[in-house]
């Protein structure tokens, strides 16, 4: 359904009828949502929520600072990077969204950090200096979406063959009609 | 020509050929294996001379241990820039070797030693004298024997000390 309509982005077309998932933050989440705007005041973040997670959108150039703060600040202490991924919103807004799912074992709360990068030469700073575990995630996302993670020590292909052409994770990459590698 | 002689010639041929292989082959590892062959053939020669104990000792020490040590050394000391296998003094070496060979053969033939050959030759002595050997080693030659064992021990310790890598040695 995402590949069919060309003039109108499908999400936009469906917008009036699509129900939104209800937000139900757990108590820790509410506390965190209250804490975050203050803690990240200097970094131009927007704090929102999605179902049970606090979502905070960060400009790409402040990402490293924010992440380091999130990891080091004792009241936040997000020492665990659960997931790093890229979502393709090129058809809607011409941007890729990079999503970081964080968890703090010490304070037992979780949050989502998001940042956006333009379709042309997508690039965000690498967070491998903050969480080493981001290493392979970033390489994988570089393979699949062509997003460059600045400062990553080795962005060589991880899951794809070395001479693979194209970015199969993107929505523009067809599922079936491609030349078999 | 007796069967004994045939066997001797065969063994001698193997010994000489594989020794030649050792000094002539370009491949160091081949040289080590040829050495093994030569030494095993020498063990056969020992058997011909009714030295069973020595033959077995030769197989045990050279076949089992020395060759393996040599192979290890070869594999440990191999580097990318393997140089020419031979010196420039190769012709000279050839000359020396041939000269020594000629000299020795002349000496053997000319000297008295060759006339030692007597009625009590190899064929008649069927008793394997390893009991005498053992007795000799532990009676008349007891002190040299002990010294030899000491030499072995010292060599062992020295080899271990030398072969340890630098960081272990500190």
């Amino acid at each position, binding site marked *: 359904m995402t590949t069919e309509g060309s003039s109108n982005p499908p999400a936009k077309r469906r917008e009036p009828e699509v*129900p*939104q998932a209800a937000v139900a933050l757990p108590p820790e989440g509410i506390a965190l949502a209250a804490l975050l705007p203050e803690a990240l005041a200097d970094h131009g973040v927007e704090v929102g929520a*999605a*179902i049970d997670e606090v979502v905070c959108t960060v400009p790409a150039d402040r990402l490293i600072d924010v992440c380091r703060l999130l990891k080091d600040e004792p009241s936040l202490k997000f020492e665990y990077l659960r997931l790093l991924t890229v979502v393709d919103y090129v058809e809607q807004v011409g941007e890729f969204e990079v999503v970081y799912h964080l968890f703090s*074992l010490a304070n037992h709360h979780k949050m989502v950090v998001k940042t956006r990068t333009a379709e042309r030469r997508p690039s965000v700073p690498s967070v491998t200096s903050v*969480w080493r575990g981001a290493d*392979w995630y970033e390489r994988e996302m570089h393979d699949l979406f062509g997003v460059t993670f600045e400062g990553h020590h080795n962005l060589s292909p991880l899951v794809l063959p070395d001479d693979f052409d194209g970015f199969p994770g993107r929505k523009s990459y067809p599922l079936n009609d491609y030349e078999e590698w | 020509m007796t069967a004994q002689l045939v066997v001797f010639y065969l063994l001698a041929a193997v010994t000489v050929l594989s020794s030649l292989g050792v000094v002539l082959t370009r491949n160091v590892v081949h040289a080590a294996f040829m050495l093994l062959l030569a030494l095993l053939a020498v063990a056969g020669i020992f058997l011909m001379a009714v030295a069973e104990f020595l033959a077995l000792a030769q197989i045990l020490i050279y076949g089992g241990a020395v060759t393996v040590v040599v192979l290890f050394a070869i594999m440990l000391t191999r*580097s990318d820039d393997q140089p*020419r296998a031979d010196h420039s003094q190769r012709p000279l070496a050839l000359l020396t070797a041939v000269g020594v060979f000629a000299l020795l053969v002349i000496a053997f033939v000319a000297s008295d030693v060759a006339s030692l050959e007597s009625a009590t030759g190899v064929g008649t002595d069927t008793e394997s004298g390893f009991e005498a050997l053992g007795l000799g080693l532990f009676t008349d030659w007891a002190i040299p024997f002990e010294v030899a064992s000491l030499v072995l021990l010292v060599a062992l310790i020295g080899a271990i000390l030398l072969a340890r*890598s630098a960081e272990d040695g500190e």
Partner: protein
Amino acid sequence: MTDPVATQIEDKFTYQASSEPGTVDMMVNMGPQHPATHGVFRMELRVDGEQIQDVVPHIGYLHRGSEKLCEHELYSQIITLFDRFDYVSNFNNELVIVSAVEKLMGVEPPPRAELIRIIMCEFNRIASHLLFYGTFAIDMGAITPVLYNFRDREKIQSLFESVSGARMMHNYFRVGGVKEDVKDDFTSRALALCDELERGVDETDKLLTENEIFVERTTGIGVISGEDALDWGLSGPVLRASGVPYDVRVDEPYSRYSELDFGIPVGSAGDCWDRFYLRILEARESLSIIRQAMALLEPGDTMAQIRRIARPPAGEVYAHCENPRGDLGVYIVSDGGERPYRLKVRPPSFCNLQALKDLTVGHYIADAVVILGTLDIVLGEVDR
């Protein structure tokens, strides 16, 4: 360089400069067809003699683009794809995707269905751990435990067969419940199986962990500290062996785990021994969970009243469960359609494998095999 010996050697081996002058390190290419890499995983080892100087892991031989496929499948069809990620703990995988969609839709499955799910998942955890003991023993050269463990695993799978109709790729969990109720003899069968499994785990325990050679081979090998483990994003037994008691079943209880009383085995040395023994204890805890859940099981519905073809509202959700291999999560972005807009899996084996280099360097080749064994990767999940 003109010497034929040298060129021959050049051809035969690739060497890299070593720290010592004159000597060279050897590159050993382990995998993708090596018996100890548990699938199509390849690692390039740079060894000095037997000692590993560097490891470069290569994955992707099994990359099927599942996440992209998921974007083109209905939610009900995605469950079949999830079955095939971590193909030795299928139920656990199914639970992740169905709980993610349920969370997105705000659906509560009936309590009986939740308990059936828990029982199945815990049985599957045991099955997965049994496979781990066996293959790990094979890596260590012991050939018998794997067959004992397979014997027990087959029994679990027979139980699965009687419940879901399939021994491995079950497709049994549904958004809002399970496919069908268990059969009448399920309780007695499952409880009897629990006893058998207990014996089987004890047997493995005796065969391996009491063996001096086994202990000698595993203690102090592949040590990773708790902080490093967190930094690498490890999870599951690998993380807990380093002393971090992070278990999703307790930290973010899903399903009905909060009603059950169970312990989390936590190691302190972070070595291969801890990673192994922890899994033995975990299997025993799982048995206790199953017994408790069986006691709670009451007759009732097994399926919530929802549309057969799930159409969750727009939004994004991250749901995760404690898999035998660690914290398996799924991030779904929905635009309100029948198919997810974006689906991303957090594969625990993938994360655990990242730490391989830290764990192996400095050990022997034989230890690399042992360390890889205790990471217990499933390539279907690493590569997706």
